[in-house]
């Protein structure tokens, strides 16, 4: 039987009543840790400050573009003389970047750093948030009253208007007749009398691959050159007769010259060419003046009665007349709109081919090269009218691009992906003013004020 009993009196006798006043390992540890850990933390901070300068204050890694001067906070964080604040001002940004504003009639211009957020790590600074754009475009106001663009756009997914070229009433202003439906039919007669199946690529190629392409970004009108990031792979070259049409559409003008063709040029140039060629021919073949040619029957039901010349000059004139009749009544007319003039030669309407459909947005065909043309351009195969605009609509873009972009397992869909804020056509060159030492130098390197 247990004799030990645990009465309160017995237990109390065991205890040293002054125990709380005596040192104890746990309390000692707590005290010394409470002293040393803050000291270590402060020591760490001082070490960081001494070794890395003001970098220790950085709220995050700089963007790729600015990472090179991570050590030189004062390049951007400029302090006014005698001032305490060293917050980034537009002046610091404009030292290196001349970034013209969006529109002259915008109601306010945000600070550079309001849209281009630094210290967010390795990311492109142009990847601005949607809110940066929608702070104006969600309820667009302009200085001169009514905005010219959609007044309320909140994102690509919500309230984004249709691309301007596809809005009601807009047609292709092109002056060259083209029937996409016919051109995409199987078994078309191609060069060398071979049957061919044409594809988009036969006529539409990116500028870097288009033969003889001369439409470079620099050749675009200013209002179409909002972006500086255009490259030759982004946009399709304008189809040209010589490279895209001539192999099938012959400009033959007389059987005497077999495969010889008139130049694809203005009527005056063609006329001069014909006079020259026929003149040379009759000089070489004087007996041809009296030959009677069979009626010209190239145009069904419209046979031209042959005329007999009395001399070489008259022969040349008759032959040139015949050739031009054939060209302007059939060959050229097939694609071009001809207008009668008071003179002997018609006027050919300008081809007016649209070089760029998206006036306010960027597009890069190269970035979409993994897709078939028909994946986005669904209408060419059934389009019979030149006025048809065969651009894919915004819904097509929205199938892959989402506002949330990669985070929603979709392609980037924030505004910056297609739109530019700065009107780079108005950008002025900036003059560099830093040395390598000032950009890469240590914290002690003096950065010039300005």
């Amino acid at each position, binding site marked *: *039987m*247990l*004799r*030990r009993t*645990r009465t309160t009196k017995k*237990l109390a006798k*065991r*205890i*040293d009543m002054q*125990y*709380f006043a*005596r040192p*104890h390992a*746990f309390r000692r*540890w*707590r005290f010394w*840790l*409470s002293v*040393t*850990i*803050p000291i*270590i*933390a*402060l020591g*760490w*901070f001082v070490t*960081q400050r001494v070794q*890395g300068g*003001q*970098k*220790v*204050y*950085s*709220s*995050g*890694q700089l963007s790729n573009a600015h990472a090179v001067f991570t050590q030189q*906070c004062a390049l951007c*964080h400029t302090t006014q003389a005698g001032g*305490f*604040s*060293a*917050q980034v001002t537009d002046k610091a940004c404009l030292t290196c970047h001349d970034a013209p504003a969006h529109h002259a009639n915008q109601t306010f211009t*945000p600070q550079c*750093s*309001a*849209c281009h*957020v630094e*210290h*967010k*790590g390795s990311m492109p600074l142009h990847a*601005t*948030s949607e*809110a*940066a754009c*929608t*702070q104006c475009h969600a309820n667009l106001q302009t200085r001169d009253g009514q905005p010219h663009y959609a007044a309320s756009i909140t994102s690509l997914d919500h309230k984004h208007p249709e691309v301007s070229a596809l809005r009601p009433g807009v047609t292709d202003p092109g002056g060259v007749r083209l029937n996409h439906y016919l051109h995409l039919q199987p078994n078309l007669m191609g060069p060398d009398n071979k049957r061919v199946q044409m594809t988009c690529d036969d006529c539409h190629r990116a500028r870097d691959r288009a033969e003889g392409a001369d439409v470079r970004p620099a050749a675009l009108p200013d209002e179409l050159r909002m972006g500086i990031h255009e490259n030759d792979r982004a946009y399709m070259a304008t189809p040209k007769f010589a490279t895209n049409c001539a192999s099938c559409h012959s400009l033959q003008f007389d059987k005497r010259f077999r495969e010889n063709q008139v130049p694809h040029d203005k009527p005056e140039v063609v006329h001069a060419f014909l006079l020259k060629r026929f003149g040379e021919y009759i000089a070489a073949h004087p007996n041809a003046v009296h030959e009677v040619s069979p009626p010209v029957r190239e145009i069904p039901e419209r046979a031209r009665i042959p005329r007999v010349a009395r001399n070489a000059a008259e022969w040349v004139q008759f032959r040139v007349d015949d050739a031009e009749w054939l060209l302007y009544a059939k060959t050229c007319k097939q694609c071009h709109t001809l207008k009668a003039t008071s003179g002997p030669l018609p006027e050919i309407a300008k081809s007016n081919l649209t070089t760029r459909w998206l006036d306010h947005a960027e597009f890069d065909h190269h970035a979409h090269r993994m897709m078939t043309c028909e994946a986005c351009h669904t209408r060419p195969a059934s389009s019979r009218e030149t006025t048809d605009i065969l651009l894919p609509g915004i819904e097509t873009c929205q199938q892959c691009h989402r506002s949330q972009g990669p985070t929603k397992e979709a392609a980037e869909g924030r505004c910056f992906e297609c739109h530019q804020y700065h009107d780079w056509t108005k950008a002025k060159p900036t003059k560099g003013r830093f040395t390598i030492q000032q950009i890469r130098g240590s914290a002690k390197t003096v950065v010039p004020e300005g």
Partner: protein
Amino acid sequence: MLIDHTHRKWFVGSTVGLAVATAVYIPYALHAPQGPRGGSALGLAFGVVGFLFMVFAGLLGLRKKFPVWRVGRAQSWMRGHLWLGLLSFPLILFHGGFHFSGTLTGMLMWMFLLVWVSGILGAALQHFMPRFQTAQLPMETIYEQIDRVRGQLAQEAGQIVEETRSALDGEVSHASERQRALSASAGTQGGLTVASGLQANQQAGAQLQRFLDEEILPYLDRAGSHAMNLSQSAKAQKMFQQFRVLLAPELHSNLDDLENICEEKRQLDRQSRLHKILHGWLLVHIPLSYALLLLGAVHAVVALKF
């Protein structure tokens, strides 16, 4: 500290505070052109309020140092420490837009996370463990007195063994009345029997002394001593059972006392372990809190500059 219905007001207040802060933060985070940033007006507001809560939570240590200060009940300070400290972390997360980047700011966020998590762990331990200890350790004592009590147990064990040996040897000076009676009765039961009984008793007494010297005292002397035989209840029971066979039933109560002393030592060891768990988090929580407040103050000044 028991988190019970008396915390209701603090709980409701903190929940409402968090709900309001979240309701303000979400539209701000979604629509701010730059995203949520510590430097924006709202970001600064979150930072200032969060830091004030942190400072208040940190002042608890000072309040405990000066219990006579008439600045509210210590219990209220403790509740404020618990709930405002809990609320301060989400506010600071809102302040920084959930970013843990930057040299100083990143360090501050990780330190705060550690302080916050250790605080929550501590609150949970303080809520559950004292009741668990009361139920599991009926022989617990004041933690700081464990070493002293251990010494007393060793002394007590020595006395019991000495009493037992005296009884076995028939030494009246050290034996109790009952033990003397036992020894006397043993002597009247016939010459041979008494003689062999005395011899057996001498051997048992020597064995008990050896058991005290080799097992019990080393076990009682050392704190923890998990590897020793007596640290395991089942093993100890077997060892004492062997002595019960050697000793007369009348002396079994002495063995029960010795066994009870070993049991008390086991409980003290367990109490010591539990105490380290119950209070060990403070060794992380308090020092890091001071470091956090120190660097947080540096950050506040620097943030105003940049």
